[in-house]
């Protein structure tokens, strides 16, 4: 569950990125987070992952109050979520299997579970036969699917995607987005940041819209800027 309650965020240089932003996402929900460039979408994500903290207001993620969380508890929080980025962030010198297994080593998953789980999540994204390939042997879309598989590896409650289709050609983007909705249907809460209007409009999902760091709309259906 995610709750933003009258959240303000100003960066050290004085830029005010969020102003009085409030919204809630229940477990199992799917939502797009949309808005023009610089409106504060990535700021929302960094508040969720604990990279930065709010200047004012309350951020609650999967039961953790992000204003009060101790640095030593951050790894615990982060194990409850999977994050997907525009630039994939795979490790270049590790093959597909190791990239995903890494996520499981990092949280101390038992050795025997890893192979099975990696096979399973690669199956979900349709790449079970590419385990031994290196990231640079994959297309952009395939790399992003590996990143999704990695985000799923530890069976998180929440997946956050920041512009997941930003580096993928338009035909593949819809396919990838469909994949995210399918994963959501398996029970994972899904927050997807994008500014691709057409893509959002293909799915009749909840759309949270922010402009200049303020909530400008929160309803099911269309993204009309």
């Amino acid at each position, binding site marked *: 569950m995610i709750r933003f309650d009258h959240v303000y965020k100003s960066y050290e240089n004085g830029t005010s990125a969020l102003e009085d932003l409030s919204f809630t996402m229940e477990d199992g929900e799917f939502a797009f987070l949309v808005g023009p460039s610089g409106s504060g979408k990535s700021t929302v994500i960094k508040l969720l992952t604990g990279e930065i903290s709010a200047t004012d207001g309350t951020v609650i993620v999967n039961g953790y109050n992000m204003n009060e969380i101790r640095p030593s508890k951050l*790894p615990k929080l982060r*194990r409850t979520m999977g994050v997907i980025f525009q630039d994939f962030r795979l490790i270049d010198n590790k093959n597909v299997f190791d990239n995903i297994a890494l*996520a499981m080593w990092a*949280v101390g998953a038992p050795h025997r579970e890893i192979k099975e789980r990696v096979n399973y999540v690669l199956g979900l994204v349709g790449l079970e036969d590419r385990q031994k390939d290196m990231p640079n042997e994959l297309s952009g879309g395939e790399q992003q699917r590996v990143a999704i598989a990695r985000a799923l590896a530890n069976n998180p409650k929440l997946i956050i995607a920041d512009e997941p289709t930003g580096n993928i050609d338009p035909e593949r983007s819809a396919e990838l987005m469909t994949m995210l909705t399918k994963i959501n249907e398996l029970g994972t809460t899904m927050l997807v940041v994008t500014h691709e209007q057409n893509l959002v409009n293909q799915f009749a999902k909840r759309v949270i819209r922010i402009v200049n760091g303020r909530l400008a709309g929160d309803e099911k259906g269309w993204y009309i800027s």
Partner: protein
Amino acid sequence: MSRFKYYLKEGFSSIFTHSLMSFTTVCVMIACLILMGSFVLISVNLNRTMNYLESQNQMMAFVDETYTEEQARALRPELLKNDNVRDAEFVSRRDAMESFLGKFEKNSIFDDVDYSVFRDRFIIYLKDIRLMSETQQELAAVGGIARVNAHLEISRGFTAVRRVLKIVSVAIVALLFLVSLFIMSNTVKLTTFNRRNEIAIVKMIGADNGFISWPFMVEGVILGLTGAMLAYLLQWSLYTAICTRIMTTAYVSFLKLLSFGQIALPLLVSFGAVGIFVGVFGSQIAIRNYLRV
């Protein structure tokens, strides 16, 4: 591949991705350890030699002339009461004269020397030569002891040499230790830089500081231990060669040297410990900036 294998593989592969820096680090470790080792060994051996020379060093306590030999002998327990006296050996006037005359056997001018010109005396062996001057005064105050002769300059000299030796060894060991720590942390820092993306990624996944640190500690410890083992072998041949040289050189053969067998284990353990310590702490210094948030 398990977690453990991952740490090892990452640690090892880092060493070879910047092999020149790794090589330099090992060389610096070797140089520092050999210098540290040599200073400590010199200082241990000099101490031993001084201990030996000191144990040979003695004071002479002369008994009051009015005392009979029996009375003089009876002073021994009195002298032994002093905490710093290891032993007191009685020498009668007669014995003193004989040993004196023994040195001049063929010299007739001493023929009619009477033993009454000599005094009964004790040869005093000390426990701690540094307290020589205090002990001299204390013994002189014992009833029946007329005078105590001592070579205070030796005691003072040894004490000064000891102090200098200690300060110099500690300073040099500390300095070299810092140098190795510095080099080690710089090399591992290079690895953290090469792997900064990976660090950011595993952090986002929820890796704790332990998971992030391990590969770097593995790297540091491998470099540290490699340096330590090579340094040990070099120190071994160096020490053995120098000892052989010293023992066959007449005018320094009074030096009381430890054989390599006597120092092999302590030296191995110390080198290993320094290698591991520098590896662990050097890598911790290198990654500490990455462990925040």
